[in-house]
């Protein structure tokens, strides 16, 4: 099966400082890959390379087996790659359904007026499918809890992604119960046959969610393991470099 995304020998330097050194990874549809590593290991840089924020210095990106360049974030979106940012990127004063369609609002009629009915209906069915528990799709984001907001952000990424969803620390700011809900939402994404790349500091979470684990240390790719065939001790040793 052709991988949805292939990264081949990716290098990234920022003004002479190497952020990513020779990184290669294949992501397949319906699989969750966790990207782990200490602070400054290059995880966020890698997400930015894939989402078009910082194009790589050298190396190849393939989408569905075809060489692709992702020069900016809007190209990434057009190619079906969506990111859930650490700070969520939601507009707090707007209702849930407007956030779901932020920047991509459907219009109708000769006056090109907002098609609110369609936005509300599509948001409702998506929220139901992913089981994101919010009081109403008309609720304003600022009235939602942290977990509900994260649910909305993930639902938005899911709605627009056709290939790949990148999740940057999706549960970093959440309590235990809310983390469990968001993890349930992420598991529901697999059923949509998307590839998912998740950054997380919680190894427990990584072992609960992922199919494979990719370890970075100071910009170097230490290795990739099948989650079922490794354990925490091995992953921790890979992250820290201590045995």
């Amino acid at each position, binding site marked *: 099966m052709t991988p949805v995304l292939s990264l081949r020998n990716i290098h990234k330097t920022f003004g002479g400082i190497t952020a990513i050194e020779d990184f290669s990874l294949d992501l397949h549809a319906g699989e969750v890959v966790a990207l782990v590593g200490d602070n400054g290991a290059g995880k966020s840089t890698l997400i930015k390379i894939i989402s078009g924020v910082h194009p790589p210095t050298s190396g190849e990106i393939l989408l569905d087996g075809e060489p692709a360049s992702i020069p900016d974030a809007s190209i990434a979106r057009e190619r079906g790659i969506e990111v859930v940012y650490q700070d969520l990127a939601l*507009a707090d004063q707007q209702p849930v359904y407007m956030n779901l369609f*932020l*920047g991509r609002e459907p219009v109708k009629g000769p006056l090109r007026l*907002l098609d609110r009915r369609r936005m509300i209906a599509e948001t409702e069915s998506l929220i139901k499918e992913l089981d994101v528990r919010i009081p109403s799709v008309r609720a304003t984001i600022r009235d939602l809890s942290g977990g509900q907001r994260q649910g909305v952000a993930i639902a938005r990424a899911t709605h627009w992604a056709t290939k790949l969803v990148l999740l940057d620390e999706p549960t970093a700011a959440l309590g235990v119960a809310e983390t469990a809900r968001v993890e349930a939402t992420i598991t529901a994404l697999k059923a949509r046959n998307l590839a998912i790349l998740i950054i997380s500091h919680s190894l427990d979470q990584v072992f609960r969610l992922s199919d494979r684990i990719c370890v970075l240390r100071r910009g170097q790719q230490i290795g990739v393991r099948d989650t079922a065939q490794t354990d925490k001790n091995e992953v921790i040793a890979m992250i820290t470099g201590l045995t």
Partner: protein
Amino acid sequence: MTAALPNRAVLQGLIVYAGFVLIFVFFSVMLWDRGFLTTTNLSNIVLQTAPATIMAFGLVFVLSAGEIDLSFGAIVALAAIVAATVMREYHWSIGLAAGIGTGALAGAVNGAIVAWARLPSFLVTLATMGIVAGLAREISNLQSIPVTQSTFIAIFGGGRLFGIPSLVLWTLAALVIGHIAYRETRFGAHVRAVGDNPRAALVSGIRVTRIRLAVLTLSGACAGFAGILYAGRVQSARYTLGESDLMTVIAAVIVGGTLLTGGRGSIPGALVGSLMMGMLSNGLILMGLSVSWQMMIKGLIVLVAVAVSLREPAR
């Protein structure tokens, strides 16, 4: 669940209507023998507030995008003077285009500096306010420029259509167009998104720079049109036009439920806010209060409105 209750922003949006009714009842009782409730007086209030209402509509877009415009009052005078000067030589339609064009151009300059240089709009428009006010004085030589073209005066001043004063019709047209553009178009949605969370707007593919340029240009064009309405109503243009409107219009917009911090606003609220400020001026005059007192009372209202608009509820 908080969402089951009417939320705070909705309540804030309703304050203006309550305030309007309250002030109306207050003056109706206090001034029952001094002609406040006559049709002539009430329709005068609407006619007098028409230019301020148009400016308020422009400002709703600016504030919603997270910016501010302090220069629109000065732009009113410049636009009126340019229109009146052009109309001495040319057809009134060219004067109209010149007036609105002047406003839009001044607004575009604000917008270009704010959008591309990323200087704070507060300081940029404070500076252009001075420049534009000076320019209006310079080109008019501190003189009044008479407007004599009768068609222009009928359309933008004292005329009527089906018995309805033209200034009322302009206000209604601006209300409908402004409200639809603000609430029901992608442009309006993007304006609110930019004011709400510029980073979210940017990563969602909204052209943030273009929105900032557009709202300030729109505010300038609205000020230009307000200048046209002033020129039509008083049949002359002078550098003093619009100079006292800055505080009134900001007050009208904030009282009308538009957040100073961006992301949320209301065009109908701005209309009611503007009518409320006009009614307040009118009532205070009828009560015999001097201009100095009116200024102080309006200032107090801005203070209260800002306090209500910006204070976060205790969570």
